[in-house]
């Protein structure tokens, strides 16, 4: 029941995006709009998964699902890059990826997420779970990626970065505490 509710909740950004693009048609710059919605949702969900151990311990059992949804939005983000932004031109996309730091940061992040998604089954997680710490690398890289993609940062983006910073502080504090008790 709760699982179903969370599932629907996590689909809302996707549904909203589809409605805005095709039904209400309010997105004036559609490619940019898809980037913004999918990117922001992906980063938010991935950051959220790391905070569950801090103050939403009850939700930890749903952590995998939330993480996979983060991957799903990152995948949509990547599809937008290949199909619409690069016009399906693989060679051009490859060149751009090697040429532009913010794109290869995003690409590295996606590959790490792909590894995590692929090894998220119960059986594989037993073996590879310890490597899921790479999520922290993803979080650092995607944060830089999103800052670099802007011409200049808006007030809300600064707010977003502040929240990220606070979460990072709490996580570091927690890791240090665990180290002390060991």
């Amino acid at each position, binding site marked *: 029941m709760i699982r179903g509710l969370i599932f629907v909740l996590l689909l809302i950004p996707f549904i909203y995006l589809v409605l805005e693009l095709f039904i209400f048609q309010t997105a*004036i*710059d*559609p*490619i*940019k709009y898809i980037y913004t919605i999918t990117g922001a949702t992906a980063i938010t969900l991935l950051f959220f998964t790391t905070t569950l151990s801090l103050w939403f311990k009850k939700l930890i059992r749903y952590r995998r699902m939330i993480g996979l949804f983060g991957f799903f939005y990152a995948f949509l983000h990547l599809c937008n890059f290949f199909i*619409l932004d690069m*016009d399906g031109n693989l060679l051009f996309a490859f060149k751009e990826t090697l040429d532009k730091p913010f794109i290869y940061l995003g690409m590295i992040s996606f590959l790490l997420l792909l590894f995590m998604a692929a090894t998220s089954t119960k059986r594989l997680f037993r073996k590879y779970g310890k490597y899921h710490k790479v999520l922290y690398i993803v979080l650092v890289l995607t944060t830089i990626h999103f800052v670099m993609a802007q011409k*200049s940062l*808006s007030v809300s983006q600064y707010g977003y970065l502040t929240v990220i910073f606070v979460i990072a502080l709490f996580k570091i504090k927690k890791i240090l505490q665990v180290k002390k008790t060991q």
Partner: protein
Amino acid sequence: MQISHKDITPELLFNQRRSFLKLGAASMIASSALIELMAKEDLPLPDLIFKKDPNRDHLELNSFKEITSYNNFYEFTTSKKGVKALAKQMNTEGWKITIDGLVEKPLTLDVKELTKRYPLEERIYRFRCVEGWAMVVPWVGFELRKLIQDVKPLKRAKYVQFWTKYDEAMFPDQKRGLFATITYPYTEGLRMDEAMHPLTLLAVGLYGKTLENQNGAPIRLVVPWKYGFKSIKSIDRISLIEKQPLNTWQKENPREFGFYANVNPEVDHPRWSQKTERVLGKFVKQRTLLFNGYEKEVGYMYKDMDLRKEI
């Protein structure tokens, strides 16, 4: 069968509904049927008298709604969608513009007078933002060179500098001091030959109607072969000077934004590609053209320059 007059679309409107306004306000027949049709097409009611642009390149216009709902105007907000609502409070009544510096006859004029002084014409131009989006806008205005010629520039005048109005009551971001997004007043510049080029326009309207606030009312610059940030909005002063001025975006980040800012698919912005562009309202990108498609007209001005260095 009875056909009432409102069932009949005038042939003109039927044949070129989207571009109907190119007829110009002078030839408008303000019949209620027409007004209804224009409302249906989301076209504004024209209030300017101008010579229409034959649109020889057959450029496909962006809609009035697209052009007036997606704007960069940092004096209000960095949100391109948010500008429209915030700009409503802007009062452009009695707006004066000064043109001074190295000139024989400096001028301060009401913008209303200015538009009576110079006959208005429509110019359908491509518009390309440095961020990678683009549109086609039917501006209404007059050539900047006409105004410059009238103030009689001195020989020493080599550059023209422009300033957006500084008015904290009008522009919320200007009163944020240290927390402002960029330094104000926003300023831009052109080399004298660029300013005197027949494509360089001072725009007072678009789609036949007086400029909306979010598009830089009551008077803005339009330099179609350069990135959008060169086309400074809501101008209150123009000055002819001797040395190359430091424009706002160059001051903010000289590695990424230069003085020339010519549209060039071969010179990428350090952080993103400029080879292609997103046309507003479209899911498919298109190739960016050298000098935004105006190479024939403006290329000669840059033939001795290294366009990779002089960004």
